[in-house]
């Protein structure tokens, strides 16, 4: 009874299986790196967002405490009609890629 059913059912041919495997392989080869890089990018974006948030916190604390990281910086301010700019002395507050200024 069992052997009769096995014999009666026609399975996939070797060629069909090979074609199916080829399609799966090609798709996998194309999609897996894309999926992996996407997941990595999402992870990276999450980490960067976290870093930005931390840097922002540090920056705000430094600004409120006027914690200068690079002293001796001047900002030139010049009105269009003025002959020379006026230099505002102060220091730079730098955290990561953020930069601001506190006057002396």
């Amino acid at each position: 009874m069992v052997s009769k059913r096995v014999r009666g059912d026609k399975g996939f041919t070797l060629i069909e299986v090979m074609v199916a495997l080829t399609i799966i392989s090609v798709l996998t080869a194309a999609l897996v790196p894309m999926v992996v890089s996407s997941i990595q990018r999402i992870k990276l974006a999450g980490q960067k967002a976290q870093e930005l948030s931390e840097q922002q916190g540090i920056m705000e604390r430094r600004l409120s405490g006027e914690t200068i990281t690079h002293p001796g910086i001047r900002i030139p301010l010049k009105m269009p009609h003025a002959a020379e700019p006026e230099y505002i002395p102060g220091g730079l507050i730098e955290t990561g890629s953020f930069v601001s200024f506190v006057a002396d």
Partner: protein
Amino acid sequence: MKLRDERGMIAIGGAVMLIVVLPLLATALWQYSMFEMKQVDRREKELQALYLARAGAEAAIHLWMDKPVSQRPEGKFERVYYDPASKGFSLSQPSNALGYFDVEIRQVEDPSVPTKRYTEIISTAVVADVTRTVRATTYPFLFGHELGWYSESSGLINSNEGFLFDSTDGLVRVAASSPIRFRENTLPNRAARFSAKTLVFEVPLNLAYRQTTSYTLSADAWAIQSKTLPIVAETIFFDDVIMLRAPSNYGFSDITYSVELRVPEGLGVPGTSIGGVPGSRYGYVFFDGDKVEVQEYRWGRVLFFYRLVEQNSFSSIFHPSDGQRLAGRAFYFRDGMNLLRPQPGDLIPLDQESTRRDLLEQIRPFVWE
């Protein structure tokens, strides 16, 4: 036959899944990841622009607060670039600028109280394609002519018949097209009192300006009397201050037009805390102009007609203890002192740079928006 067909359908379904749906899912994931990255990059640039804009506003605030009233800047400054390589700010664009900021200082009206105005500092920074703006707003103010103290066009001080021109508190700016001065023939007790918590003179207070009266009969000349302008404020920023003095002659007495400085009730600092006279209260006065002096007049006579005649002679007012000129300096002033004749203990020198900033910050700190 039927079974074969069903198997084929399953195979086709599986193939479609693999060929269409999986790439779609993968593409969606890729797009999401790219969007996330762009969002984070944009957030970073937004914060960079925000802090750069803040740097510009901070510099402008510092410049504004350290300037004497008459020299305070207003308008748009030239663009300033930041170069991360040299960690420097410059007016010319460096090759690798992180971004730049534009700063403007302007006066705006308070929409809820049209007569009240503010000084606003607006700094806009651009990093790549991201723009951020910060606003710093300083204290509200009124103009003295809006309170009826003087005429804005002529600078003539009004008489206070009927009511007093007091401001309750806050900051009042005294600005006019001509120096602030007495009206001729104003009785001494009819001068307006300039009263506010903080008073800022943006024009000279020149009580000797055009005070030459026409010749009058001696009976009328007797009506000319000394006058005092009471200035009641905890903090006063002066431009030039010029008073008037005419020595007695022809039987007429000394005439002086002077300024009396008073501290409003409940304000000021006690004398004991600053080395002043115990029991006295002191306010703050900044002589930001070039002159604190008295212009000499004399009594002139033609037959039976007399008048005060202007002399081209000015005498500086000196500090009674250190003998230095008052112009360009800052002091604690004693409540009730007369500026024409400062007495020892009337004026205690103070560090004007730090005090100026501290006082302005007490009035109302710059508010970041």
